[in-house]
């Protein structure tokens, strides 16, 4: 549904977006990650037709956003960064205007507004003026505007920003639910959100895509991914170490804590982590260690994000 090819946007002499390409199909939820100023919002603004690209193209559905902006925009629901709303309007007036501008009239308009109000839990403030709303409500009002016309494409710039944990949870499940039959792009700073919601994630840094894959794939790229952690209640770390070092497929052993023992094993390669863990388990049973924990580290998106977007920090540094 969304196809972006070699997108470039230059402001003055600074390239905000520098050769970004990706595709999002129906049923996909693409998470956009990146430090502030990496070009996430700019990319989204180009996709929604707010900014023209310096070069490259963005297509939504079968329409080029540059050449057939109105047709493309019809397919898109957009939540801009900071959720701007016309603060002099009431919630229902604002949604009514957005629906009308999207060509909805009469009962269709009313149904769409009612549905959006219900979906975004806006009932208590329907007749309130937007400038009297709390940040959470204001944010959800703008979100309601983006889903009003049930668009096949949704572009959400930080949809959970400024919401409380319950509202965040609601919005996430809303995005997950809608993701089944829509193409969705959303940006966020919260990495758990990507794991919880996205089918695919893109990390963008200084205008370029530096990682692109399913959240699990990205996590496997973390420095700590695939290491084995074990804890034994009745032994000292130094005592266990020689046994573990002799295990086949183990490249390094590190003692995290001495008493009670906690050690970390690094397998020769990430794929053999499970086999190694099985051997550790056998060893422990043979030696009658009192194992209290044995697990394979999953790798954390935080670490991937940091190691990719902070080129100066030593990769593989663990927190």
């Amino acid at each position: 549904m969304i196809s972006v090819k070699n997108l470039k946007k230059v402001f003055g002499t600074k390239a905000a977006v520098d050769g970004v390409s990706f595709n999002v199909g129906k049923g996909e939820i693409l998470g956009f990650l990146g430090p502030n100023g990496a070009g996430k919002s700019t990319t989204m603004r180009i996709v929604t037709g707010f900014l023209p690209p310096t070069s490259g193209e963005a297509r939504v559905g079968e329409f080029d956003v540059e050449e057939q902006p109105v047709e493309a925009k019809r397919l898109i629901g957009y939540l801009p960064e900071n959720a701007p709303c016309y603060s002099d309007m009431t919630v229902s007036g604002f949604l009514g205007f957005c629906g009308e501008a999207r060509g909805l009239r009469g009962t269709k308009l009313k149904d769409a507004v009612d549905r959006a109000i219900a979906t975004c839990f806006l009932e208590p403030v329907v007749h309130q003026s937007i400038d009297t709303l709390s940040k959470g409500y204001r944010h959800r009002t703008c979100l309601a505007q983006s889903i009003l016309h049930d668009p096949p494409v949704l572009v959400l710039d930080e949809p959970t920003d400024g919401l409380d944990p319950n509202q965040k949870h609601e919005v996430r499940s809303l995005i997950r639910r809608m993701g089944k039959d829509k193409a969705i792009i959303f940006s966020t700073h919260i990495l758990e959100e990507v794991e919880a919601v996205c089918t695919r994630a893109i990390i963008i840094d200084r205008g370029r895509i530096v990682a692109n894959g399913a959240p699990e794939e990205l996590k496997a790229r973390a420095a700590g991914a695939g290491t084995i952690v074990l804890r034994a209640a009745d032994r000292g770390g130094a005592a266990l170490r020689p046994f573990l070092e002799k295990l086949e497929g183990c490249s390094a052993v590190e003692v995290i804590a001495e008493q009670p023992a906690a050690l970390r094993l690094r397998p020769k390669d990430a794929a053999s982590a499970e086999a190694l863990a099985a051997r550790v388990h056998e060893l422990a049973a043979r030696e009658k260690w009192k194992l209290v924990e044995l697990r394979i580290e999953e790798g954390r998106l935080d670490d991937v994000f940091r190691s990719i977007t902070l080129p100066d920090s030593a990769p593989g540094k663990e927190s």
Partner: protein
Amino acid sequence: MSCCGNIWSIAKRELSGTVSSPVAYVFVVIFLLLSSFFTFMIGGFFERGQASLVSFFGWHPWLYLFLVPAVGMRMWAEERRSGTIELLLTLPITTWQAIAGKFLAYLVIIAVALLLTFPVWITVNYLGAPDNGVIFAGYIGSLLLGASYLAVTSFTSALTRNQVVSFILAVVICLFLILCGWPPVLNLLSRAVSQGFVDLVASFSFMTHFENVQRGVLDLRDIVFFVSVIVFFLFATHAVLRARRAG
């Protein structure tokens, strides 16, 4: 059809925004107060002894000079400041429809203010027998004049996110367009440049054209002038909005 629908949706929103704020009321009330004050107290409506509204319309270029930029300065500046411009321009409407819708909304406010001056018209008809054709032409001219100021304001409002800057720029441009037909300015100018150029500058003045209309002469040339000014500044608005997004 859907094009007009879109323009109307934008205009309606803009009007509802303006009507729920004091801006529109202040504009209408101040316009009515000042126009009556100038007509009757300073313009010498009674002393003239003529059944005409010359002393009424004569003040409009000066009243509009401050009031129209004041009412229209938020047109784009406010959208830009609050970020709603991003919502507006990602709706499935063209930039032209947005510009036209907003322009129309403020034009309606000016038209309402003008219509509410009907007591002046009643007064003059009660006191004498004026040529109502001339008065009608005066109203048309006044609306065109207001619309021209409004187009200038639309342009300056698109230039900045600061409403005050937009207001001042609009006043300066309108003032220039008034004064460039004023004899003292033209005399000054004629010392420096050729007569042909002076005439050219004078032909760009609101005053030259508005005076014609005021006299009851609805000349096509004057109408074309006002319409060209409006179209020019709306084009300029479009160009500015485009350029600001191109980065």
